[in-house]
């Protein structure tokens, strides 16, 4: 068969790739997003509660980059790039057939692209993509990136969200991600054969809708909580609590001092560099 030998690798492994794409959307990408939004929404309990969770994540220490690459970055890149291949293979026709599921077919693709662009920018905006000094100080910061400091978690995240354009981008981005996951779980159930009959698919759709609305509320609560920590008295209080936690953790010997993970004096609030916390941080014992 001439056709078979000429088929590209992408065509020959189409079934496996599509199923991996479907699976990776839930595990690990979707699962990570749920954990991420839940963790961030803990800021509603105050900056200290969120900071505690960040320390828990950062307790992975040297393993953190490995975990991030294996369970977050590589799956997101695979899901996003193969998703674009899938989008390229379709021809939307909602103007002729405006059925609800056909509209969701288009929305799934639109939110997928929005979510991918948002995530790439979000990682730049908060983390600056690459942790090299020349890049962070020379490029990323000049372009408004690398604003998040894990050891001043809520205050730096809150400060980064103060611009109107940025907060709108985050609201749109988070909602796109949530819709894409909730609707993706519904289509995944059909793809893998979990819900087959129209009645079962309707029930699953209702469950996915409730899940999506719930996750959207959690995501927006996280955003509102972070934003509120980045302004006025709340900001000063957040920085005070974070610095207190840092110093206590360092003094207790449960945290290695790391100035790079803290807000730098120049970008923190005035008076910050004069605080005694800084001095004690540099000489932990």
């Amino acid at each position, binding site marked *: 068969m001439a056709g078979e030998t000429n088929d590209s690798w992408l065509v020959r492994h189409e079934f496996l790739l599509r199923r991996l794409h479907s699976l990776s959307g839930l595990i690990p990408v979707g699962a990570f997003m749920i954990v991420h939004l839940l963790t961030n929404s803990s800021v509603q309990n105050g900056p200290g509660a969120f900071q505690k969770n960040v320390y828990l994540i950062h307790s992975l220490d040297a393993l953190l980059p490995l975990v991030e690459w294996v369970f977050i970055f590589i799956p997101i890149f695979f899901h996003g790039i193969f998703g674009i291949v899938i989008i390229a293979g*379709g021809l939307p026709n909602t103007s002729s057939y405006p059925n609800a*599921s056909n509209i969701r077919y288009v929305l799934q693709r639109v939110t997928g692209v929005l979510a991918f662009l948002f995530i790439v920018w979000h990682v730049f905006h908060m983390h600056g993509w690459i942790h090299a000094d020349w890049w962070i100080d020379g490029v990323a910061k000049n372009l408004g990136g690398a604003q998040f400091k894990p050891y001043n978690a809520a205050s730096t995240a809150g400060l980064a969200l103060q611009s109107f354009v940025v907060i709108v981008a985050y609201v749109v981005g988070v909602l796109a991600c949530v819709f894409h996951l909730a609707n993706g779980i*519904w289509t995944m159930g059909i*793809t*893998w054969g979990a819900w087959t*009959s129209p009645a079962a698919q309707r029930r699953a759709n209702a469950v996915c809708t409730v899940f999506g609305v719930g996750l959207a509320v959690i995501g927006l609560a996280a955003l509102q909580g972070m934003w509120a920590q980045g302004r006025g008295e709340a900001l000063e209080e957040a920085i005070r609590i974070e610095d207190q936690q840092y110093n206590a953790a360092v003094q207790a010997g449960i945290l290695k001092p790391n100035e790079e993970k803290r807000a730098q004096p120049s970008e923190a609030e005035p008076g910050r560099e004069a605080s005694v916390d800084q001095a004690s941080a540099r000489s932990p014992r």
Partner: protein
Amino acid sequence: MISRSKTSPEHVEVRVLRQAAPQQRSYWERFRVAYEPDMNVISVLQRIAARPRTADGQDVTPVAWDCNCLEEVCGACTMVVNGRVRQSCSALVDRLLEENPAEIELRPMTKFPVLRDLMVDRSRLFRALEKVKAWVPVDSYHDMGAGPRQSPEAQQESYPYSQCMSCGCCLDACPQYRKIELIQRDDETDEQFAARQAATYDRNFVGPHAIAQAILFNQNPTGQMNADERVEALTAPGGVQVCGNAQNCVSVCPKEIPLTTAIAQAGRAATVHSIKRWFDR
């Protein structure tokens, strides 16, 4: 609704997307047909064929179309009527004028190569049925006797799938099913061209109709004996995995076949099949 007068219109305006031959440019032509009660699109096309003159008085070739049974069981007269794919025999003019009193718009199906005007080449649709082995192999030198008995419940479940008339509505409305139109090369024999065409069709989406037929024959007690071959075909390139869950197929199917149920059942069979193959090899 108030604008709809009790007196019937004198004329029906019909706009047809025409094309002289494969690969040629398509163009719109407008016709005016005297209204008669209880017309369907076929009878409108018959009136145009009887007197092929456009609305602005130009004599043209008659519009070509396919039809056969005239009772919505053969699928031959499928075309895009007022933007929606359906059988033209069951497309009643009075209903269409309720949708749009100004005109009736006729286009050939959008996913198949146009042969002429409203006639298309649907051979890819039948190639997909071959790919998934949508039949029960009973040919033998010996009398194999009666097949296994089927419970009434199983019959009830299979019956809707058996109503498929291979019209292609599901394919035309599917955003994942893309048109393939190949041209025979000068150095190619008819057999070589047919082989190239079959290979191209095979690596592209089989479509909901073929998935439903594979499920129908996998549910059949005798057909079950070849179930693995069909699931294998459904997981090959262009298989069930290409489905994007837009679910247009089920909403346009004139026979109301539960195509999305078949797709999910095929998905489940593919899941079980691939896990089994992974551990059994």
